[in-house]
């Protein structure tokens, strides 16, 4: 259990909150037999990296392996740049945390993980369908769906603001227990728009981004799915010029009018900042904004409630920000990498990490959705109870840009085409112009 000098010194630093920003960790173990390098996703909840570090430490000590863990932020696309660079240079970390479509994007360079998945499935059952869709290729698991960073990006709203300004009692609509309420049936995109308009009038807009980063894309994806709109269909044909897409754009035309002035330049931190600074009535985000608010603006955190996405004509779709752990084919230490992943995906470890981050990390295995953490996080008690998808929500996961073939979907996703369509509307272009632009852009992706 000895930590070499570097770590102890770091551990001793009285950095308080700053301790979260230790994104690189060397873990050396006496008599180490091998070396393993991992790129973890840098957690947005301040406590997220610490607990991960402890678990990695425990595994490294047991298995006598030197571990170098990088915590790579998704801000400024840093993780995507890293993944792309490693794939291009054919060198890099043994394990990479792959968000969303990246597993499919690099499936030819990834080591199949069937053996690990077989054992995990025998313990915990099949993962969520959307996770399977993103992780499997030709029946093989190209990466292991993880809980670390795996997130639902539904609405997180200010209880008092929605109640006072929009007459919407979200706590009553989605209380912290497994019930179907009548109010929830009326939670549609139309209701969402009405509330957005009312709150904007009161100077507290819905801070939904129209930028090109994941948060903006995922919210847009949920809206597209709710109307059954596909910009590229499963066969890879560009189908943006279609009635469901037009319906979405007609809706969006009204919504973008009431979004914040800066919505177009939003990144994944802007919406958090808007909520924490008390300037927004609602954001679409996992509970990291909540967790930071709890530290920096507690009175706002106590007024937050997380709940499912609104429904559209084709159903209710909760945006999923999936994360997988993949092992490169060119990784130096594949066997250790697989062992480590399997260890970190054990129920106890998943739960410990989940607890540390106020429930942010959703397990990919539905069987693990019985952790008590979501009911217990407070204040207010039960604020993230409805953050994981529960049967009473009558909801399904949405992965933005599906069902387009992965090699096209990843480009639509990473270039933020869906929210950019909304941004075009916002800048005064017509639906026709927007579709024409998207048509051309999407044809470019099929290159």
């Amino acid at each position: 259990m000895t930590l070499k000098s570097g770590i102890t010194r770091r551990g001793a630093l009285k950095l308080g909150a700053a301790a979260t920003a230790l994104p690189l960790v060397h873990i050396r173990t006496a008599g180490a037999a091998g070396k393993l390098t991992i790129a973890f996703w840098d957690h947005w909840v301040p406590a997220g990296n610490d607990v991960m570090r402890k678990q990695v430490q425990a595994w490294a000590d047991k298995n006598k392996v030197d571990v170098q863990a990088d915590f790579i932020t998704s801000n400024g696309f840093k993780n995507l740049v890293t993944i792309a660079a490693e794939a291009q240079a054919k060198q890099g970390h043994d394990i990479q945390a792959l968000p969303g479509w990246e597993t499919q994007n690099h499936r030819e360079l990834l080591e199949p993980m069937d053996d690990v998945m077989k054992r995990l499935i025998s313990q915990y059952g099949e993962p969520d369908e959307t996770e399977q869709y993103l992780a499997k290729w030709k029946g093989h698991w190209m990466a292991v769906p993880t809980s670390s960073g795996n997130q639902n990006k539904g609405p997180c709203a200010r209880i008092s603001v929605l109640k006072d300004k929009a007459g919407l009692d979200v706590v009553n609509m989605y209380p912290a227990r497994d019930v179907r309420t009548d109010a929830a049936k009326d939670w549609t995109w139309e209701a969402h728009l009405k509330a957005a308009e009312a709150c904007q009038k009161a100077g507290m807009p819905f801070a939904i981004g129209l930028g090109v980063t994941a948060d903006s894309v995922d919210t847009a994806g949920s809206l597209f799915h709710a109307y059954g709109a596909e910009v590229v269909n499963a066969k890879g044909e560009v189908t943006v010029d279609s009635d469901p897409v037009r319906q979405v754009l007609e809706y969006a035309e009204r919504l973008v009018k009431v979004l914040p002035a800066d919505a177009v330049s939003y990144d994944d931190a802007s919406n958090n900042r808007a909520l924490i600074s008390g300037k927004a009535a609602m954001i679409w985000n996992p509970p990291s904004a909540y967790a930071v608010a709890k530290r920096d603006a507690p009175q706002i955190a106590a007024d937050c409630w997380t709940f499912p996405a609104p429904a559209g004509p084709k159903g209710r779709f909760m945006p999923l920000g999936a994360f997988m752990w993949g092992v490169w084919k060119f990784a130096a230490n594949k066997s250790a990498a697989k062992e480590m992943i399997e260890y970190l995906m054990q129920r106890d470890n998943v739960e410990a990490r989940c607890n540390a981050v106020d429930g942010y990390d959703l397990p990919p295995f539905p069987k693990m959705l019985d952790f008590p953490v979501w009911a217990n996080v407070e204040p207010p008690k039960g604020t993230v109870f409805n953050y994981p998808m529960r049967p009473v929500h009558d909801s399904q996961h949405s992965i933005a840009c599906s069902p387009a073939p992965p090699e096209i979907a990843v480009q639509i996703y990473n270039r933020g085409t869906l929210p950019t369509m909304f941004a075009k509307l916002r800048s005064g272009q017509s639906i026709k112009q927007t579709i024409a632009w998207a048509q051309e852009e999407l044809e470019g992706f099929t290159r």
Partner: protein
Amino acid sequence: MSSATTTANAVAATRRRHTRSLASQRRWALYGSYAALVVFVIMFLIPPFYTVMTSLKTSAEISAQSGNPWFAHNPTLSNFIELIEMPDFQYFFMNSVMITVVTVVVSMVISVMAAFSLARMGFWGSSTLATGVFLTYLVPASLLFIPLFQILGFLGLINNVWCLALVYPTLAVPFCTWIMIGYFSSIPKELDEAALIDGAGYVQMLLKIFIPVAMPGIIAATIFAFTVSWGAFLYPMAYLYSMDQMVLTVGIISDLVRGDVFQWGKIMAASVLAAAPPVIIYAFLMDYYIAGLTSGATKG
């Protein structure tokens, strides 16, 4: 008579008035210049000022958004202390220092040797080369970073901080060579003839005469090489991603800007610390700095 006197008086008066008005005109022009300069200085210093102010605030103060954001109401150095103790920041800083030192040394050796050769000795094609050196500035880093990515990948140097020691000299050497050619050319030819007669070789001549005489030029070129490699952004952005391989410019932007939204005090403190070395050097060696900047102009 009387009319003549009045005329003469009138002429003298106008002349006096004229000179007085000229003088006052000059004085007003001077005041006007100062006033305009003050306005410009304020505009130019707003971002650094705000950066310093933010670096003195706590996260709580930034997020509270109460009161005037342009001043730190409860100034604290805690951001700086935490930063200096933070291992990532230490990595960034040490890497930046290491790479900058190597780049400056390598660049200066290459460009002083080459400038001496091109300005004084010459060989077949040397004048073409002198022109060619300058033209390399027309091939900016933003054109080269993609092929260099492939080349560095082939050499196995992606995500290795030493790859910067390889590519940074291309940013500094052409201009340093240019500065040095200018300085070496201005040294009188009689000096080397005298040295040759005394039996000195070329290398001795370079070391014993040219380098000491052209010291101001060398200092100017060194400052230039330092500034360029300390502040370069695109190459590390494209080629480095691990924390322990990162340098300051990119490290602060891509690794301190995190999901955790109120690190801004620390980010600004980091940016103050990163800007400090060039600013300090500049404060002490401003004249060399400016000589380096303008050497292209005054000669051309």
